């Protein structure tokens, strides 16, 4: 096996950080996502060939964008020659000329516009996720398809339909007005959070691809936090992702079974990520504009603060869940609160808190998993076994199933 040369590594590094930026810049001048994407793809192919030989350029981002722009101009000229209708050829040549005149100039950053376009509420939620990963993250359709366990053809079609809608319905390429920003930003943050959760929660499928999803979500959250420093919810989302991702090394056992928070080896947690997350949560607190992501980050910060599970300040967590329920009233949040209540005030109190959720969350495996654990703790083993069975019927995730089966096996025979 030969080690990759510096040039090859540099291309790989530039790809992750610069693909989205290059697409965003090219899309602004070309007005066509397919053309922008193809040109950037070609520029990276040139980089793969040239950088190991010529050395890494001083400004890799600028090099990629300049190369992509030249490729786009070449292609427009070639296509113009083949056009029957003179009007079309003239249009393509005019575009090529206008691109050429913008060739020298500072490299701007259009990624914020691009992410608002990719996460536009007029696109379906699945399309938003796929487009964001493809155009901003540079993930291939094959990689995205593997991560979401859908056939590649389905995923490719999802992306091309979304691009066609952006073009046909004229979804604008700009950062929304101040009036629209809160709603539109919520859609963007939801996409980033979904990408992270998909990578973090499921163990089915390719583990490396899933870790790449988490890394990509954190990259996007960092990018957004840098571009929108005035929005505490963006910072809150970044902190939340960092504080949850910090526990990844302790989360799965050797055989890929999930390890619950209290049983994790906390020495394996990533102290640097926790420190960064904590610092962001503290900065958010000062701003005094709490929102769902900031509150969830604060809850994770309390967990990560405890050196041992038994040191966890559960009262503080219950208080934070009370606040979260006020801004985001949902039965799933209430279930998480019930778990915290059980730790702060005992399993019976937890069961009481979970009681009103039995109907709305009847089809949610975690409701049954949580109730099973609490029932076992108060010695109601028969009901606990029934709830474990219900949870196992509803849960499709292999490592979480393994966890539930292990717990079910710990119940006394009866």
């Amino acid at each position, binding site marked *: 096996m030969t080690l990759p040369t510096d040039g090859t590594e540099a291309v790989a590094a530039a790809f992750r950080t610069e693909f989205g930026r290059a697409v965003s810049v090219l899309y602004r001048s070309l007005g066509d996502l397919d053309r922008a994407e193809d040109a950037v793809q070609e520029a990276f192919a040139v980089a793969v060939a040239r950088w190991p030989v010529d050395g890494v350029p001083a400004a890799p981002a600028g090099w990629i964008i300049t190369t992509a722009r030249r490729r786009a101009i070449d292609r427009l000229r070639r296509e113009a020659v083949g056009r029957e209708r003179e009007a079309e050829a003239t249009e393509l040549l005019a575009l090529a000329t206008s691109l050429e005149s913008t060739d020298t100039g500072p490299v701007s950053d259009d990624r914020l516009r691009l992410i608002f376009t990719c996460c536009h509420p007029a696109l379906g939620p699945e399309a938003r996720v796929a487009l964001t990963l493809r155009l901003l993250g540079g993930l291939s359709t094959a990689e995205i398809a593997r991560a979401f366990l859908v056939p590649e053809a389905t995923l490719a079609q999802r992306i091309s339909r979304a691009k066609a809608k952006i073009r046909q319905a*004229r979804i*604008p390429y700009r950062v929304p007005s101040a009036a629209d920003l809160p709603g539109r930003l919520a859609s963007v943050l939801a996409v980033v959070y979904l990408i992270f959760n998909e990578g973090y929660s499921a163990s089915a499928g390719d583990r490396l691809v899933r870790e790449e999803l988490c890394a990509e979500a954190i990259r996007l959250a960092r990018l957004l936090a840098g571009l929108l420093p005035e929005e505490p919810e963006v910072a809150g989302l970044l902190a939340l992702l960092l504080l949850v991702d910090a526990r990844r090394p302790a989360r799965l056992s050797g055989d890929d079974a999930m390890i619950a928070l209290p049983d994790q080896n906390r020495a394996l947690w990533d102290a640097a990520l926790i420190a960064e997350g904590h610092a962001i949560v503290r900065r958010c607190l000062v701003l005094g504009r709490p929102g769902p992501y900031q509150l969830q980050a604060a809850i994770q910060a309390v967990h990560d603060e405890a050196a041992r599970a038994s040191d966890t300040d559960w009262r503080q967590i219950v208080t934070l869940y009370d606040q979260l329920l006020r801004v985001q009233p949902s039965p799933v949040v209430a279930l998480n609160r019930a778990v915290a209540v059980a730790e702060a005030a005992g399993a019976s109190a937890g069961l009481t808190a979970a009681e009103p959720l039995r109907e709305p969350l009847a089809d949610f495996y975690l409701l049954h998993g949580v109730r099973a654990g609490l029932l076992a703790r108060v010695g109601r083993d028969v009901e606990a076994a029934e709830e474990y069975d219900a949870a196992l019927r509803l849960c499709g995730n292999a490592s979480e199933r393994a966890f539930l089966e292990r717990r079910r096996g710990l119940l006394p025979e009866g």
Partner: protein
Amino acid sequence: MTQYLLSVYQPDGPIPEPEVLAAIGEDLGRLNDEMRAAGAWVFSNGLLPPSSSTVLRPDGDDVLVTDGPFAEGKEHLGGFTIVDVPDLDAALAWGKRLAVAATLPIEVRPFA
């Protein structure tokens, strides 16, 4: 500029009381005036019930005439507005105003 069709979808069944309809009509009138003032208005009108429609189908060299509507559903096209605006966000902004005024769902679709 792009033209967008804002279709108003109305549930089948009884229509609201006259006084409710009158209030909706006033709101729609005010919205149309605003659209005109902003230079976005192209056309707007309501439709009579689907039972008033007639369907024509090509059939060889002939065209068959039948009683409408074209498709039976739970909703029908109640009316529509056409706006001429720079992009989808502008069309959606008018569409939201229309949904509120009409108290009904709106479908926004670009013309070719």
